[in-house]
């Protein structure tokens, strides 16, 4: 794969929206992630298809969240953590870029590959509007005028299916929102920078069933527009929202397949054992 290691702040254009089918928007190659000397994941090679939802499942401690955090250089923010191998992002302009190349800027990487965490993390001192706009300030295409910012905020909130609920109180504190709304706010914040990829780490783990359903609906709606990777404990959720599923165990990728196939006829006996609950 041809790579261009010139991923620096603002190097990736967010234009060129035409849909290229069957392309791997994001691909890890031989990815190994360490905490100190211990490898949490080993030699993971996994492609994430464009404009689809890929789910990662596996038991606690299997490395699925670590893997996710490697995909936008969040892993290295932990002291003593490091990564071997490559993660290649194919940008909208078709250029392939190794996000771990020396010249790659982690901040720019995270603009293109956004992340939403298990617990909603609104900035408590900021208003709803400022929470959504927070990511814009660190990006190159930043909002030049308050009016432009308002447009981006509205678009992001609409895409996150939150606009109708908050449009009359954009200047109020984000912490007054319910847990489900806060999580959609975090998704809106991730969407505001127009990333190619959005990573979600157990996005509904702390939400009630109705809020969970709304987030899952949202993933379906976003699927045609962007590439989504979701880590989930909940196998039924993986089955409902994703088109591909990857199963991790003990830091290794055991199997990846179209979701329907993985949940009806997995090819590896360990996948079978895990998803049918015959696993200690």
């Amino acid at each position: 794969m041809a790579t261009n290691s010139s991923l620096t702040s603002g190097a990736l254009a967010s234009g060129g929206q035409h849909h290229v089918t069957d392309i791997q928007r994001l691909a890890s190659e031989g990815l190994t992630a360490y905490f100190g000397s211990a490898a949490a994941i080993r030699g993971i090679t996994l492609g994430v298809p464009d404009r689809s939802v890929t789910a990662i499942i596996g038991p606690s401690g299997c490395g699925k969240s670590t893997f996710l955090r490697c995909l936008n250089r969040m892993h290295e923010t932990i002291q003593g953590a490091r990564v071997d191998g490559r993660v290649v992002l194919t940008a909208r302009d078709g250029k392939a870029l190794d996000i771990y190349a020396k010249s790659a800027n982690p901040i720019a990487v995270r603009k293109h590959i956004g992340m939403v965490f298990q617990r909603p993390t609104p900035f408590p001192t900021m208003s709803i509007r400022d929470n959504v706009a927070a990511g814009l300030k660190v990006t190159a295409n930043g909002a030049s005028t308050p009016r432009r910012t308002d447009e981006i905020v509205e678009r992001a909130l609409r895409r996150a299916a939150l606009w109708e609920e908050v449009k009359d109180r954009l200047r109020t504190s984000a912490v007054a929102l319910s847990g489900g709304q806060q999580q959609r706010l975090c998704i809106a914040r991730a969407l505001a920078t127009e990333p190619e990829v959005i990573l979600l780490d157990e996005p509904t783990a702390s939400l009630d069933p109705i809020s969970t359903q709304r987030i899952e609906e949202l993933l379906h709606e976003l699927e045609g527009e962007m590439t989504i990777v979701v880590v989930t404990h909940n196998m039924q959720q993986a089955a409902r929202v994703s088109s591909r599923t990857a199963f991790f165990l003990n830091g290794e990728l055991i199997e990846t397949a179209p979701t329907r196939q993985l949940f009806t006829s997995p090819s590896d006996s360990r996948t079978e054992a895990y998803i049918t609950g015959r696993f200690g």
Partner: protein
Amino acid sequence: MSVLEATTGYRHFHQQLDTLKQRLLAMSERAESLVDLAVDALLSRDAAKAEAVIVADAEVDQLEIEIEQLGIALLALQQPMARDLRFIISAIKISSDLERVGDHAVNIAQSVERLSALGQAIMPDPEIEEMARRAREMLGDALDAFVRADGALAREVCRRDDQVDSLHDGVFRILVTHMMENPHTISAAMELFLVSRNLERVADLATNIAEDAVYLAEGKQIKHHNEERAS
């Protein structure tokens, strides 16, 4: 793999899966014995045995309802995956096939009752007996293949269906000859044709069950030549 045992949360589910399997085995035993008894009634022209088949069919019907309800509850409450999912779906389908097997045994028994009333003895019985033996073996093997998740045996059962079909054609030709030679045999010959037709259907249902056994064992759908089309 270090440990491959059921976790606590799944233990109850796996017990229920086992219950479903036991009920399906009970149903297949009943359905198979109904076919045996119906054929026995035919060969011995024994109206009392035929009556016993008709009475016992209610038990098979009841088991179908029980299996269906248990399967639906497991699907709704446990969200089964992979082999468990394939097992439950197949068990529900097989229970419906076995219910039909019971109905065919009843049809044969009713023909026996009418044949007894006619009191005539035209005899393509060796052929019908052979058909019954083969259909019955197919049924038993299909269920064994399902219970043991033996895809190879199941595929072999599917291939045997053609033999029963050609025996059915043979019986038909023999009966037509009888009817042409002696129109007084028409009523009896028609009953025997119905018996043959019902046995042929039992073999078809055994084939359906064998196809479900392949699906359980291999995750592949082979019915309607689906596998050949996909390849």
